[in-house]
């Protein structure tokens, strides 16, 4: 049997599994917004662990990271710093977000921020930032999916058609089963992608070099420039190391799909264990990615698109069944992020826009159906965006992460009581200035002084938030006592 038939068939087998899971989740669904949007706040450790890691690691963990090691060398091992920060932030911040969500029945990030800052402006700004920047993620994942299916089928399925097929499947099981379907499919996807990338990298390392250690030796002989910083093209400057660390940790944690995961946990202990242990999965996934990228740089040094290094190596040197299994793993990586973002955008638009401003008194069933129609709308937008361009995957993800990063002062102001309070005017001005600086330092004058635009934007955001908060009205004492008091009780077991 021809390799492309095996590879494509395995991807479709995987898709069938996700469809079945979506159908089963649909049978468990109750007509309740919290059940549809938040898994009824009953997610346990294993389900939450796998959905968090699968959502965090997108198609760029499979394709983009190999491409980065291929082009820039060992500098991408900086990934360890941001994946560990994700764990630490989850431990400290995620558990507080969970506590407030459970106590005050928050569903979206905007629920929490609008409640504390007593501002509909903050609600709208948060919702806009949440949706605007994660739309870029939909585009990235959808493009990755189309690319994977196109590669697997040896070009017989176009990127556009592949994107449409996989987007439709993801939207289909989300519409059917809500967050429960997303979580269940993420469990399969989380396991599949981890096994796939490790098996693929080890098979290639043994086949091409005789083993991983021999691969490292060969890289040192042929391309020693790949083994030190800042890499052959000077990309990984200290400023980029720090900036990517902030953008890809705080920036992703503050995206709505991650914050919603915190709300959905069954208890605080689950969140804390999640924080302590998710870096094991997140960080170790980049160990095989390094083997793929660095090994690929020796074997096929002239690739026009570095992100193609993993599938190219597989098609040239791995058996067809393994290639299919691994490309299905790459599909899993993209779909698990895509479905989470579709879900979170649907949640934000249903809760923060439709329920709040369009039809506030409708039934639970009404909102569930509205959510489903919103997913179909997002499916269309995602498809249109994805067939327009094909930009470098990691850069897009970084831009997305930097956008959500602008919620950082506002979220910290809610979750970390301090001597001074941030105000609604402070956080709104901070977000506005932060986004402006982000545009300037990522698009107009990219990464001034070698420091990533994310760092410039978040520094400007904090400075403005603090300054404006000093001269504008703070939230009422009742609200601060209620919310910070709850944080105090949760963390230290007393009222303040």
């Amino acid at each position, binding site marked *: 049997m021809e390799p492309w038939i095996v590879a494509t068939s395995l991807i479709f087998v995987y898709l069938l599994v996700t469809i079945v899971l979506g159908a089963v989740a649909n049978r468990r669904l109750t007509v309740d917004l919290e059940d549809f949007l938040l898994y009824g706040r009953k997610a346990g450790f294993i389900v939450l662990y796998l959905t968090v890691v699968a959502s965090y690691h997108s198609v760029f963990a499979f394709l983009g990271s190999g491409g980065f090691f291929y082009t820039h060398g*060992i500098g991408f*091992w900086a990934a*360890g*710093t941001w994946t*560990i920060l994700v*764990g*630490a932030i989850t*431990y400290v911040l995620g558990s507080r977000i969970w506590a407030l969500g459970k106590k005050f029945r928050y569903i979206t990030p905007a629920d929490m921020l609008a409640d504390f800052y*007593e501002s509909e402006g903050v609600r709208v700004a948060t919702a806009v930032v949440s949706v605007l920047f994660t739309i870029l993620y939909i585009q990235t994942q959808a493009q990755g999916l189309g690319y994977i299916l196109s590669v697997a089928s040896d070009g017989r399925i176009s990127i556009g058609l592949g994107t449409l097929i996989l987007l439709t499947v993801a939207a289909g099981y989300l519409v059917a089963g809500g967050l429960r379907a997303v979580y269940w499919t993420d469990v399969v996807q989380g396991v599949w992608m981890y096994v796939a990338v490790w098996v693929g990298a080890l098979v290639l390392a043994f086949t091409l070099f005789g083993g*991983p*250690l021999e691969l*490292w*030796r060969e890289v*040192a002989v042929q391309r*020693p420039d790949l*083994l*030190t*910083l*800042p890499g052959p093209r000077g990309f990984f400057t*200290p400023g980029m*190391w*720090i900036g990517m*660390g902030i953008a890809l940790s705080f920036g992703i944690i503050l995206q709505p799909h991650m914050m919603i995961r915190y709300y959905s946990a069954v208890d605080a202990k689950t969140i*804390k*264990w999640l*924080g*302590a*242990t998710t*870096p*094991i999965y997140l*960080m170790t996934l980049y*160990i095989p990615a*390094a083997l793929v990228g660095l090994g690929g740089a020796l074997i096929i040094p002239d690739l026009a698109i570095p992100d193609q290094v993993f599938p190219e190596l597989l098609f040239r040197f791995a058996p067809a069944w393994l290639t299919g299994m691994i490309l299905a793993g790459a599909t899993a990586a993209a779909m698990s992020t895509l479905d989470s973002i579709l879900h979170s955008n649907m949640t934000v638009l249903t809760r923060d826009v439709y329920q709040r401003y369009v039809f506030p008194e409708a039934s639970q069933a009404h909102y569930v159906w509205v959510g489903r129609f919103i997913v179909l709308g997002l499916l269309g937008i995602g498809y249109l965006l994805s067939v327009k361009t094909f930009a470098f995957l990691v850069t897009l993800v970084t831009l997305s992460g930097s956008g959500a990063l602008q919620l950082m002062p506002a979220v910290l102001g809610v*979750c*970390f*009581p*301090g*001597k*001074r*309070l941030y*105000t609604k005017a402070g956080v709104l001005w901070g977000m506005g200035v932060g986004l402006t600086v982000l545009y300037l330092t990522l698009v107009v004058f990219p990464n001034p002084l070698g420091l990533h635009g994310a760092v410039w934007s978040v520094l400007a955001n904090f400075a403005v938030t603090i300054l404006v*908060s*000093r*001269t*504008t*009205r*703070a*939230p*009422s*004492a009742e609200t*601060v*006592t209620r919310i*910070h*008091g709850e*944080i*105090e009780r949760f*963390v*230290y077991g007393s009222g*303040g």
Partner: protein
Amino acid sequence: MGSPGDPGPAPRSHYLPRTREGWIGVVLFLLLFILAEPPIVYTLANRVEPWVLGVPFLYAYLMVIYFALIGVLIWVMRKGV
């Protein structure tokens, strides 16, 4: 609404730990994290040799730091901080 710059009713900061285990966890985490950041990672650690267990020094160095950081997180969890 409160007055401008109102310090609010919860004056005890949550940015500083309040227990011995909390301080140990934060200090250990930060010290280890600094070892995985510039300038150290661009100077002392930025080398291929000596090889450590068959991999280049920088790669091995960072991996040790990363696992140590995970160890701190697990220790903090077990201590109930």
